[in-house]
C-alpha cells in the first residue's frame, strides 16, 4: 500500500493542497522565518520520498510487520441489532501496535527524519497516544525523543506518561496556558525553532504548516485504502456513510480521503461538543469557531472577537484542541463532508454501549464517532452500511471514565 500521490484530475476532492500548501483558503505556512527554510526542506524531502520505491517499501514493511496492518474490518453485529437500523462496521485501528491510528503517521515521519539526517525527535501530545507512538518509533530507530504534554493532560493520562518513559522518552509537562494540547504544541514549536539544525518535529495530526497536513493525511490514508478494498472484498460495494471522530482530524482524513471522489459515499466528521455547543466548554472548531491562523496554518479556530484563542474542552484529551486540520476546513466549506458534534455525556454512553455489545473498550475519541453512529443508524434502512473508524482503544481512558461514573478504582 503506497503513499498517495496527489490526484491531478480536475474537480477531484483529492487534488489538494496547491503548490503553496493551501486547501482553498486554508492551510499554508504561517511559521516564524527561522522555521521556513526547514519547512521547505521537509517538502523537498517528502516529494523525493513519494517517488522513492525504497521509502515506500520500508514504510509498507514496517506497517505490516511492526504495526500489524492491515487492521481488520469488523461487522459489529450485536451493536447493529441494538441500534436497529443500518449495518455498523468498524475499521479496527485500535488493534494497531500502541493501540491507535497514530503509529501509521509516526512510522512515515521518522523515516523522513532519518532521510533528512535529523538525530533528535520532538512531539506534542494530548491524550498521549501520539506521544506513545512517537516514543515507540524513536525506540525502534534509536533516536532520542522529547514529548511535550500539557500538565493537565499529564495528570489525566498518567498511564500513557509512564508508557512513554518506559520507551525511553523524556516527557516535559507544559504549564503555560491551560496546560493542554495547544500549549504543548506551542512548546514543541519553541523547542524546534531553537534546535532546527538537528531536530525533527513529528506532528501528530493533519495540521501545522505545509507539508504536514498533506503528509500526515497521506500516511494515514492507509486506513481508507485498506477499508475500501476490504469493503469490496466482504460485501462487494462501498459503504453508504463513513464516520470518524475529529480532534485535529488525522484519523478522519485517513479514512475519508481515499473515498472523497466516490459520490455515493457520504461522510460525517464528529467533533467534541464537551458540555454542549451553546456554551464555551467544547472543542468543536468547525461548528463553533471561525477561520484564523494558529500553529502554522489557517483554519477554523476557537477564538474570541479579538482573535485570542480560547481553550477547548472535552472529556477526551485527544479532541481537546482549539483548531482543526485545514483540509477539514476546506471539506466543510465545499460541503463534501458533513460535520456534527457529540457531548461528553453522549460519548460516555456510547463508550459503555460498545463495551457491552461488542466486547470492545474504545478510547473516548472514537466513542464520539460511535455516539454519532448510534444516532444515524436508527434512521437508516437495514441494508445500508456505516463504516466507522475505531481509531483507538480505551485502556488509557478507564480512569477518566471511572471518575465520571463515580467509581473509585
Amino acid at each position, binding site marked *: 500500500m503506497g503513499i498517495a500521490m496527489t490526484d491531478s484530475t480536475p474537480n477531484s476532492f483529492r487534488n489538494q493542497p496547491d503548490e503553496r500548501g493551501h486547501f482553498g483558503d486554508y492551510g499554508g505556512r504561517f511559521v*516564524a*522565518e527561522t522555521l521556513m527554510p526547514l519547512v521547505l526542506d521537509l517538502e523537498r524531502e517528502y516529494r523525493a520520498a513519494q517517488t522513492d520505491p525504497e521509502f515506500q517499501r520500508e514504510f509498507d514493511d514496517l506497517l505490516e510487520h511492526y504495526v500489524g496492518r492491515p487492521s481488520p474490518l469488523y461487522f459489529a453485529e450485536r451493536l447493529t441489532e441494538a441500534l436497529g437500523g443500518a449495518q455498523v462496521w468498524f475499521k479496527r485501528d485500535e488493534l494497531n501496535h500502541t493501540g491507535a491510528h497514530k503509529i501509521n503517521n509516526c512510522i512515515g515521519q521518522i523515516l523522513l527524519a532519518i532521510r533528512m539526517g535529523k538525530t533528535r525527535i520532538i512531539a506534542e501530545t494530548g491524550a498521549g497516544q501520539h506521544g506513545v507512538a512517537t516514543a515507540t518509533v524513536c525506540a525502534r530507530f534509536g533516536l532520542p525523543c522529547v514529548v511535550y504534554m500539557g500538565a493537565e493532560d499529564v495528570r489525566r493520562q498518567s498511564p500513557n506518561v509512564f508508557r512513554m518513559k518506559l520507551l525511553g522518552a523524556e516527557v516535559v509537562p507544559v504549564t503555560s496556558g491551560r496546560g493542554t494540547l495547544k500549549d504543548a504544541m506551542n512548546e514543541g514549536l*519553541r523547542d524546534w525553532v531553537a534546535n*532546527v539544525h538537528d531536530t525533527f518535529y513529528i506532528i501528530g495530526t493533519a495540521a501545522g504548516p505545509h507539508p504536514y497536513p498533506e503528509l500526515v493525511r497521506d500516511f494515514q490514508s492507509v486506513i481508507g485504502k485498506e477499508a475500501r478494498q476490504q469493503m469490496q472484498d466482504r460485501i462487494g460495494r462501498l459503504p453508504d456513510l463513513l464516520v470518524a471522530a475529529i480532534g485535529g482530524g488525522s484519523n478522519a482524513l485517513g479514512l475519508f480521503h481515499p473515498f472523497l471522489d466516490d459520490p455515493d459515499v457520504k461522510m460525517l466528521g464528529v467533533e467534541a461538543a464537551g458540555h454542549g455547543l451553546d456554551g464555551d466548554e467544547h472543542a468543536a472548531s468547525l461548528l463553533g469557531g471561525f477561520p*484564523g*491562523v494558529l500553529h502554522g496554518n489557517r483554519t477554523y479556530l476557537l477564538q474570541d472577537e479579538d*482573535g*485570542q484563542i480560547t481553550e477547548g474542552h472535552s472529556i477526551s484529551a485527544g479532541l481537546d484542541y482549539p483548531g482543526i486540520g485545514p483540509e477539514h476546513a476546506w471539506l466543510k466549506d465545499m460541503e463534501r463532508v458533513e460535520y456534527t458534534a457529540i457531548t461528553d455525556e453522549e460519548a460516555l454512553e456510547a463508550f459503555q454501549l460498545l463495551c457491552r455489545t461488542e466486547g470492545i473498550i474504545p478510547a473516548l475519541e472514537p466513542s464520539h464517532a460511535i455516539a454519532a453512529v448510534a444516532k444515524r443508524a436508527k434512521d437508516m434502512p437495514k441494508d445500508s452500511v456505516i463504516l466507522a473508524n475505531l481509531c483507538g482503544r480505551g485502556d488509557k481512558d478507564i480512569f477518566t471514565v471511572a471518575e465520571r461514573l463515580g467509581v473509585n478504582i
Partner: protein
Amino acid sequence: MTRLSNAFTKPHPALVCFLTAGDGDTAANLDALVEGGADVIELGMPFTDPMADGPAIQQANIRSLGAGTTTADVLRIAAEFRARHAQVPLVLMGYANPMIRRGPDWFASAAKDAGVDGVICVDIPPEEDDALGPALRAAGIAPIRLATPTTDDRRLPAVVEGSQGFLYYVAVAGITGMQQAAIESIEANVTRIKRATAIPVAVGFGVRTPEQAGEIARVADGVVVGSALVELVAEHGTDAPAHLRELTAGLAKAVHSAAKGAA
C-alpha cells in the same frame, strides 16, 4: 522621509525598545523609554499563543490578557502615544491571528489611524504575504520582515522583497530573551543581508545589556531590546518607569556612541 526612516538616518545606530501593550502602566512605561533615549518603540500586541517568545514575554502576554487588554486597548495605547510623541516611530509587533481577525484592511486602517509606522508579524513569512502585506502597504504602514540565521541566500531575496522600514535580524535560532549569539555570527549575517538590501538592519533576540547592545551597534543599523525591559515591568510594577528609564539610558548611550561601521 518617514518617521521610521528618520530613525535610521541619524548619525548613530538606532535603539529599538520593546514592551508588551497592556502589561502595567504602558503609557508611563513607554514615556520612560523615550526619555531614556529609545529611537524606535516596538509595542507588542498580546496573544494567547506567543510561540516565538521565551518565558519573559510569554508572562507579559499572560499578564496583559489577564488584565483584560483588547485590540481596541492596544490601538488606544498607540494613538495616545502618538498624541504625546509626534516624532517617535512606533511599530506594532505580534502574531497573525489578532492582526487579521477583522480582516487585514481593517487592521491596517486602524493601525494607520493610531499613528503606527510599521508592523512586525512573527508568523507571516514572505510565502504568506498576501494575508496582511498588501493591506499594510496600501495604508502606508511598513511591513517589517524578520531574517534569521537560517535564512539562507536562496530565500533572502524573497524576505527582503516587499520589506520596508527596516529588516529585523533575529540573531539566534530560538525564542526571545534567551542566549545571545556570537558577535562574529551577527556581523557576518548582517553583512550578508546588507549586500541584499538597502534598507537598515536592526538586530534583536538575546540582547540584554548596554555592553552587548554597544557591541552589536558597531556592526548594525539598530539594536532591539525586549525581554530585559519586559522583566523590569514584571519586577517593579508601578515603579517600573524609573527602572526602564535607567536601563534605556544605558542602552542608548552604548548604542549611540558606537560609530556605524566601526568594526
